């Protein structure tokens, strides 16, 4: 080729110059574990379903959510959402209202009639589930998804367990509960109501079950040794809450004293208030030592419920109680002071915790029972091969979400066990802590708070106290998610690379590094909002 004066070479592209050879460390994409997901007792992929909700694709969000937990509408009302306590956004302004978005998705699914995904094929195995509470229903759902036949025995007349007999209507309306229970039954679960299992081995043998999951809950109210006159009316909290579900509402009188400091004590007091009584909670320690969640206490106080702190009940009479004042010692334990007083009371409700009825396990070899609950291994299996257990009857924190998590874990291990394998949980990813984020990039946005029912209706009716977000503010709330540790395709790495060494693969496909040209400056890592890239030393 003829070249101009003083030109000896053809023009070339700088692409010939592989600047990747300068690099001493390389950026790599990774998915870190968001703190909300890590915290969730039911193992929900919260960041994952919020990602779909952010784009307004609520059905995908719901489907993603229900892979782990089939009860979002219930969760959105009764879950204690410890995820929000772990949320990184809490360090920025206020945590994402995960629970309120879940509430919205759950209600949206019921409104739209979305159905759970049935199993692709049947395994031919048959699993017995005992107890239709959160844990048992969760296990039934996950076992069905694995293709196993499930027969569910429930001692009571209705599905739901503690969700029905322990949680009052004003927190969980019964139509919501029933709809979410029915959706699981619709996957093909055989339900036997009013069928108490008295001998698990016998029932398993008769029904030719390959495995069993027990989740009978803790339904026996603990009694305290309180000397009481014949006429004193004493009832336990769980019996009271259960009788609320029947035709005959309990007669409590006007002055109802609730003894205990847990969430159940609060539920009972709020229930009594709604029945027209004047409840008083008596608790032996102080507010900061109370096991009940503070928001529940706060709601109760708003409704006009009184609490007598640092007090124990010494004696019950026909229309009064003798109370002894307590004082905290240096270790924070309440000690009697010898100071007594008398308060008027038409009835006394004991909310002192619950015990498990382990009658069905009598004669089963290999079991270990400690403190009234059944020991299980990390695979949720009891000491007897093939019998798994979860929920309130095993040693764990007792709440709905934990129970649902147990049901899922147990179902996975039962599935592995039935196939003669061992289910291996995935290796836990490193956590996307706050210091991994570059929060500059997130828009400032205050939390959207769900509406609360007005106080008069809260004091006199069983209407649901906490309202729901509507579509627009649920979307807003979902979009407050920082997507910690997981790429949400913000294009920052693609944009900020001075060497044009990030390849954008298109919507949904994320990005890829072009290591031929990446010089390893680390700018993509520093400017990634959500901490989904890290630098690794180059092997030299």
């Amino acid at each position, binding site marked *: 080729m003829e070249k101009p004066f003083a030109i000896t*070479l*053809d*023009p*070339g*592209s*700088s*692409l*010939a*110059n*592989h*600047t990747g050879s*300068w690099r001493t460390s390389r950026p790599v994409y990774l998915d870190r574990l968001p703190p909300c997901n890590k915290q969730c007792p039911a193992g929900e992929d919260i960041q994952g379903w919020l990602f779909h909700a*952010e*784009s307004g694709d609520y059905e995908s969000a719901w489907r993603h959510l229900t892979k782990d937990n089939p009860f979002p509408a219930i969760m959105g009302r009764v879950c204690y959402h410890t995820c929000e306590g772990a949320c990184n956004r809490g360090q920025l302004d206020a945590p994402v209202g995960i629970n309120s978005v879940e509430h919205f998705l759950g209600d949206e699914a019921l409104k739209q009639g979305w159905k759970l995904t049935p199993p692709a094929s049947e395994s031919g195995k048959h699993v017995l589930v005992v107890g239709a509470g959160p844990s048992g229903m969760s296990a039934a759902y996950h076992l069905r998804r694995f293709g196993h036949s499930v027969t569910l025995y429930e001692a009571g007349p209705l599905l739901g367990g503690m969700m029905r007999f322990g949680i009052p209507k004003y927190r969980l309306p019964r139509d919501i509960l029933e709809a979410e229970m029915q959706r699981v039954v619709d996957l093909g679960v055989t339900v036997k109501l009013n069928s108490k299992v008295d001998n698990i081995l016998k029932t398993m043998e008769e029904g030719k079950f390959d495995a069993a999951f027990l989740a009978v809950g803790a339904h026996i109210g603990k009694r305290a040794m309180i000397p009481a006159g014949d006429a004193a009316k004493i009832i336990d909290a769980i019996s009271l809450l259960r009788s609320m579900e029947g035709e005959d509402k309990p007669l409590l009188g006007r002055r109802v004293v609730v003894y205990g400091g847990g969430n159940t004590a609060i539920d009972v007091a709020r229930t009594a208030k709604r029945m027209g009584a004047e409840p008083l909670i008596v608790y032996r320690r102080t507010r900061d030592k109370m096991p009940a969640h503070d928001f529940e206490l706060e709601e109760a106080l708003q409704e006009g419920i009184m609490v007598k702190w640092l007090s124990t009940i010494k004696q019950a009479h026909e229309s009064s109680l003798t109370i002894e004042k307590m004082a905290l010692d240096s270790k924070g334990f309440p000690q009697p002071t010898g100071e007594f007083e008398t308060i008027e009371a038409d009835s006394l409700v004991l909310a002192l915790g619950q015990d498990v009825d382990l009658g069905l396990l009598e004669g089963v070899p290999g079991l270990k029972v400690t403190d009234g609950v059944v020991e299980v291994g990390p695979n949720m299996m009891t000491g007897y091969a093939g019998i798994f257990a979860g929920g309130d009857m095993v040693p764990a924190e007792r709440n709905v979400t934990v129970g649902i998590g147990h049901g899922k874990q147990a179902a996975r291990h039962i599935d592995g066990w039935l196939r003669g394998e061992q289910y291996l949980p995935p290796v836990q990813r490193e956590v996307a802590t706050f210091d991994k984020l570059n929060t*500059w*990039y*997130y*828009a400032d*946005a205050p939390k959207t708070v769900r509406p609360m029912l007005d106080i008069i209706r809260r004091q006199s009716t069983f209407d649901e106290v906490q309202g729901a977000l509507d579509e627009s503010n649920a979307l*807003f709330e979902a*979009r*407050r*998610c920082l*997507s910690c540790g997981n790429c*949400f*395709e*913000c*294009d*920052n790495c*693609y*944009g*900020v*690379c*001075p*060497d*044009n*060494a990030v390849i*954008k693969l*298109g*919507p949904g496909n994320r990005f890829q590094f*072009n290591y*031929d*040209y990446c*010089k*390893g*400056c*680390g*700018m993509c*890592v*520093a*400017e990634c*909002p959500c901490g989904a890239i890290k630098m690794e030393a180059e092997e030299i």
Partner: protein
Amino acid sequence: MSFQPVHFYQTGTFTVGNRLLAQEERSVQANMERTNSLNSGHRACQGCGEALGARYAIDAAMKAASGRLIAANATGCLEVFSTPYPETSWQIPWIHSLFGNTAAVATGIAAAIKVKRHKGQMGDVRVVAQGGDGGTTDIGFGCLSGMFERNDDVLYICYDNGGYMNTGVQRSSATPPAARTATTMPVGPEPGNAFGQGKFVPAIAMAHEIPYVATATVADLRDLEYKVTKAMGMRGARYIHILVPCPLGWGAASEDTIKLARLAKETGIFPVFEAEGGELTSSLKIRRQQPVEEYLKLQKRYAHLFGKTPAVATIARLQAAADKNIRKYGLLDQEAN
């Protein structure tokens, strides 16, 4: 407002892209089809702010001009690292000039295009001139002022990294006070570059009352693209001054380039604004104000301020200069205070 206020979408317009935004609201850089005017394989240092700023600006200009653009480039880092004979990283028509005459070369190209269009020999092609702060504020300043004064139809973009970096970090008239360079060593009673010297060319450009003057940083992509696009929509002499941190000359970690640009804006050290016909029309507000130390201490060129006894008085003077910028250019949102 130079900053597009958009409905709340998780990261709004802070990030380069946003999957939740409508296609037409997205940035040029988020586009898979962007020009990549300055392609891979260039020899800029790791984390080069100028390489980044140049791609941001020229890609936006290419989009605004529908790909019909010629760039004239002054001598400097940008020219040296992008075009070692016979390679080029430029994927646009690009012409190299001397250190001092880029504005004049661009003027000539614009004049030639005008004649050719007049004769019906070609359609519209736009002209951009670009250079570093040395080629703009020192060596090329005479030609630049002439281009402004004649109101030639050229967009001049200055990438300001505050010194002659590729020749070994010498002082330019854009080097900030107290900064160490090879020619302003941190010795004597007033270590580093002297106070009270240097010049701020955006203000001088405004004094020429040209149609459009703007400043930007590599930390605010959307603002930068908005300004380039707006400038390309106008005729006559236009000037955009972009702050581009230099890891080498500033003594900063390569991953901190954007962080430093952001801190320069958030502290008020570098005012981000736009002006039309010599009048200030808007400024990019400080979002999370920071003291100047946060900006200074990340850079080794200011290390002498943070010795055993911190140079409190010098830092206070730099803070005062930042505060003056905040007042002068209205960098704080009055409603928020």
